[in-house]
């Protein structure tokens, strides 16, 4: 059976700006290694059409990821995943910021009725994936 191609998903009702949802979805795939260096991404036009957003929204998400060193933009249309050197950051303030955001997210999930056990299981699964990639 053919392996399913990676997909990104946005939820227009979530209240989170589409550009952030697209960039976040792509970043997850990049970090988890589902998009490896050399992979060609679809054109801005194609993704924008499928997601029902403006071309500029997708182009902006691509630009953000290119600025982070994940993508090489081709003539402003498609993009290619490039090998990215992980920046050596040992910044306590950054770690603290990350921890706060994670706590905020956990609190949000709990307020939406997701059990603490379920959240812990998700985090454990995520931690496993992170250590593998």
């Amino acid at each position, binding site marked *: 059976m053919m392996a399913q191609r*990676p997909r990104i998903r946005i939820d227009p009702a979530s209240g989170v700006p589409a550009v952030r949802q697209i960039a976040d979805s792509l970043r997850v795939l990049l970090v988890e290694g589902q998009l490896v260096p050399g992979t*060609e991404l*679809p054109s801005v036009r194609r993704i924008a059409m*499928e997601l*029902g*957003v*403006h071309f500029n929204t997708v182009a902006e998400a691509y630009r953000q990821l290119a600025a982070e060193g994940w993508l090489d933009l081709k003539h402003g249309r*498609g993009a290619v995943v490039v090998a990215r050197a992980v920046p050596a950051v040992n910044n306590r303030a950054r770690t603290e910021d990350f921890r706060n955001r994670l706590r905020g997210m956990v609190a949000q999930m709990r307020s939406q009725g997701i059990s603490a056990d379920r959240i812990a299981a998700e985090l454990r699964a995520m931690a496993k994936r992170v250590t593998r990639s």
Partner: protein
Amino acid sequence: MRLVLCAVNVFMGALLFAIPNMARRELLFAVPVPPDLRESRAGRHAISMFRAVIAAAVLAGVCALLLTPPELLNAVATAVPVAILLAGGISFYRQNRKLAPAAVQFTRPREAELSAAPEELPRFAWLAAGPFVILAAAARFLYLNWERIPPRFPVHFETGGQPNRWAERTTKGVYGPLLFAAELCALFVAMALAGWFGSRRSRSRTVMLGGMIAIEYLMALLFALIAVQPLLGIPVWMIAVSPIAILIPLLIVMTKKMSEPSEPMDPTPNECWKGGIFYYNPNDAALFVEKREELGYTFNFANRWSWVLLLGLALVIASALFVLA
């Protein structure tokens, strides 16, 4: 002839009658409604009211066609279908407004596959070349039998069946209908391709492509019959009624496939639909989106390419003045 005119108007009324059934179950008069509303008292009432107006308009039209004196028949025959369409449009809009407060917003996440592979057309798309073959065959037939074509032949008929306009055996007079049909078919191919590459991936998109190709065949057959009519003497009523033979099965198949699709409704924002018919969303890159009022797709009028295609349609229609004159 009056009976044929009545039959054509009754058929048109029947098509309008079927409009509520030509949309997805979760849509009623282009309003996205809860799934149970269609079967509820309010839903059934809305459908009945819509159909009552259509029935009244058709009945009045048929009476007018049967009772009008012969000298007014031409004018009445033109006015009746316009009046039926107008009545249907107004009735549709009224029901749309009445149901609008019950509208729900479809929300579901959207997904995009991260494949850079070029999009391919389905295999059956090559059938779009068929209508051009039909038109070329008709042209060849006329060319080979040029001497048998009458020097002057009727091309337009009164409602009584009497010819009221003639063409001469010239290149333009003989091949004009075929040229016009070729223009129409080319436009339909352009629309079909724009629809395929300018809309979101879905099974409905494939149905739409098939429908466009079927309509292309309908146009080609109709104009090929018109073109060879002076040679073969095909009765005019047969030419007028022949498109229905393609149209009815096409509508049945498309209605079945699109009213109960295997995919959920495209969650286009309600506020971007004007009167439930016109979609205008500058923040949506799609050129075509699924219609809400019946089956098929419609333009996203915020996309400039929609205006280019409409201009193409206007030019093709305008060219009839020169090609068919």
